[in-house]
């Protein structure tokens, strides 16, 4: 049986300023635009690496304080925020493995219900993996080139997700 049509919807076209101006002559051709954007990314890579080193140290400090029982409230959210940053930036800046490790950790943290304790061992092993991924020899590696690392971390994620203390995702 066909569905009953819903109340009338008002439909209209909007010629937004974005569309009007973006269609003007004189735009940057795609190839030129991509090359220019990539040049900007490449130029920012030295600065990114400094930022990355600082971020990893900050993350390590937060985790170590938590291990020592000296964590501030909200430390886990801090870990989550920093991990998401690393995940979001890694691949774009040439650190594919970094994104993989950070993403794995993000998924574990997101799957942990609020109020449940997080497994410190899981977090610290990911932290070690992030430092590993930061090293120059791992920088351009594809995931299939480090199967032990990737499989191991995926297994950790699966194990954590079926733990009786953690609700499944």
């Amino acid at each position, binding site marked *: *049986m*066909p*569905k009953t*049509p*819903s*109340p*009338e*919807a*008002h*439909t*209209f*076209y*909007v*010629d*937004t*300023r*974005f*569309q009007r*101006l*973006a*269609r*003007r*002559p*004189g*735009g*940057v*051709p*795609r190839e030129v*635009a*991509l*090359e*220019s*954007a*990539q*040049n*900007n*990314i490449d*130029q*920012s890579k030295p600065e*990114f690496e400094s*930022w990355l080193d600082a971020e990893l140290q900050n993350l390590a400090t937060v985790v170590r304080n938590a291990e020592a029982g000296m964590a501030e409230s909200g430390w886990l959210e801090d870990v989550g*925020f920093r991990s*998401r*940053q690393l*995940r*979001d*930036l*890694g*691949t*774009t*800046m040439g650190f594919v493995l970094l*994104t993989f490790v950070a*993403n794995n950790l*993000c998924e574990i943290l997101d799957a942990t219900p609020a109020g449940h304790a997080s497994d410190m061992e899981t977090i610290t092993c990911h932290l070690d993996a992030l430092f590993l991924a930061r090293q120059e020899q791992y920088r351009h590696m594809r995931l299939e080139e480090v199967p032990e690392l990737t499989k191991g971390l995926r297994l950790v994620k699966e194990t954590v997700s079926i733990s009786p203390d953690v609700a499944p995702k």
Partner: protein
Amino acid sequence: MANTPINLRDLVILVADPSPYLCMLVHGILRGFGANKLLEVRHSFGVLETLVGQKIDILLCDSRLPPHGGLQLTRAIRRNTENENRTMPILIMSSDTREATITGARDVGANMVLAKPLSPASIYDRLAWVAFHPRQFIDTETYFGPDRRFKIEGYAGGVGRRKGDKVVEVAEEVGPTLAQDDIDSLFSASRTG
């Protein structure tokens, strides 16, 4: 579409993401595309304040923008009848590109989803799509935003839900059309340029 240049000069582009470094990265990419008026904010309050103060031409917004999230923010922008920016293009940036997330973004009125990690190619292509493929806006009791139907494949049950919908007989394709894979790629994860 792929070869048509887009002109971003003098367009006011607002990037909303909690990560200052990511905002800087996106600005660098957009400057490479020729953009020269770039703003950034870290949270949804910043977006709302900016929208009150000035005209924004396009918003790139993280799906987890604190404290409300990018989807809730998008819904609020679309539902605010007082704001002149309510029809501006909104692109949601998200690392979660599961179908539920894509559908959620679409259903709050976002134009497109940009998969994180971002690539210059994915950003350029989506901006070009928004520029050169305008969609009509739909205003109902429950939805305000761009038409969520990209490709008419016929209606479930043979009858559309809108009053103006007619019975659609979908003919065989006889010429070049945008392949479903191409449409899907505009929404699905694209982690490489």
